[in-house]
């Protein structure tokens, strides 16, 4: 309680109010969107034209530049979503719950994309679109967690109760993320090991690594832009009867 008051004392929660975050988010969207486009063009150029052909996998390995960043984002977004959901539960801040809700569809999109590009990479390399391997199975569970979070939230009419119930799913499901990440070490899987590890030098050409990191940054900026756009929708939908939205509509004339 004291902790919460100390934070409130330095006006930490100023932008935690939907009314002040709505215009701020609107101003931030174009910047993150522009960054996403520039980084995507640079990443695609390096990945498709500069990076050399892989000596083992030929040109098929270029799927990596979309597969690995999508898989990273799918896990990262889930963690951020769970943190916002937990903050919403603990501090009962409306905006945190809205952020969690805004992140879920984009997280599900990248999870699906990781699975889809993985199948397209697995077929020519392993000879199978899908195998019930630890990495693939836990990533599929991640997709179900996102879908579960969104359906539960949609099934409950009262937004506050919906946020609380779905927050529990988000928090419990976060256990799955380290399991996905370490699955290639814990189990003997068909899926290859981590592309980048903190303990050893990357096992790929510098240009390949650059393309992958630039593409990841691009997806990161895209995620921020699209989630800010979606949270603006959610703010208006949930606060439509409030005075500040009415004033906003009067000014819009």
């Amino acid at each position, binding site marked *: 309680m004291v902790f919460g008051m100390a934070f409130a004392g330095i006006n930490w929660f100023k932008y935690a109010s939907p009314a002040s975050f709505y215009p701020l988010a609107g101003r931030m969207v174009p910047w993150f969107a522009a960054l996403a486009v520039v980084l995507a063009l640079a990443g695609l150029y390096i990945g498709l034209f500069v990076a050399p052909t892989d000596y083992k996998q030929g*040109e098929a390995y*270029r799927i990596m530049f979309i597969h690995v960043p999508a898989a990273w984002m799918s896990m990262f977004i889930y963690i951020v979503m769970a943190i916002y959901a937990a903050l919403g539960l603990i501090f009962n801040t409306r905006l945190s719950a809205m952020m969690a809700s805004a992140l879920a569809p984009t997280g599900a*999109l990248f999870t699906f994309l990781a699975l889809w*590009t993985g199948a397209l990479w697995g077929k020519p390399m392993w000879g199978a679109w899908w195998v019930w391997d630890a990495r693939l199975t836990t990533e599929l569970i991640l997709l179900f967690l996102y879908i579960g979070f969104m359906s539960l939230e949609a099934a409950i009419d009262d937004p506050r109760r919906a946020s609380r119930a779905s927050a529990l799913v988000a928090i419990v499901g976060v256990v799955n993320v380290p399991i996905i990440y370490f699955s290639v070490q814990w189990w003997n899987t068909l899926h290859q090991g981590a592309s980048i590890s903190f303990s050893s030098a990357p096992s790929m050409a510098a240009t390949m690594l650059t393309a992958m990191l630039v593409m990841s940054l691009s997806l990161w900026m895209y995620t921020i832009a*699209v989630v800010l756009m979606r949270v603006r929708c959610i703010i208006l939908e949930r606060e439509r009867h409030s005075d500040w939205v*009415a004033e906003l*509509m009067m000014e819009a004339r």
Partner: protein
Amino acid sequence: MAEFFAMGGYAFYVWASYGAALLLILMEIIWVRRRLRTILLRLGRMKRMTEVYTEVKVEHETKT
């Protein structure tokens, strides 16, 4: 150029990956923009309804 698109025989796998990424991202942007437009139209209708209600109320009060 044709060689680039052939992707060393892996054209289908590579382009189906990049294509899906582009398609999903464009679809998400369209969905979110449509969602914003829908709620703004709804708020606009709510505003006009309150305006009409106030006008009628004022008219009624001035008559009586």
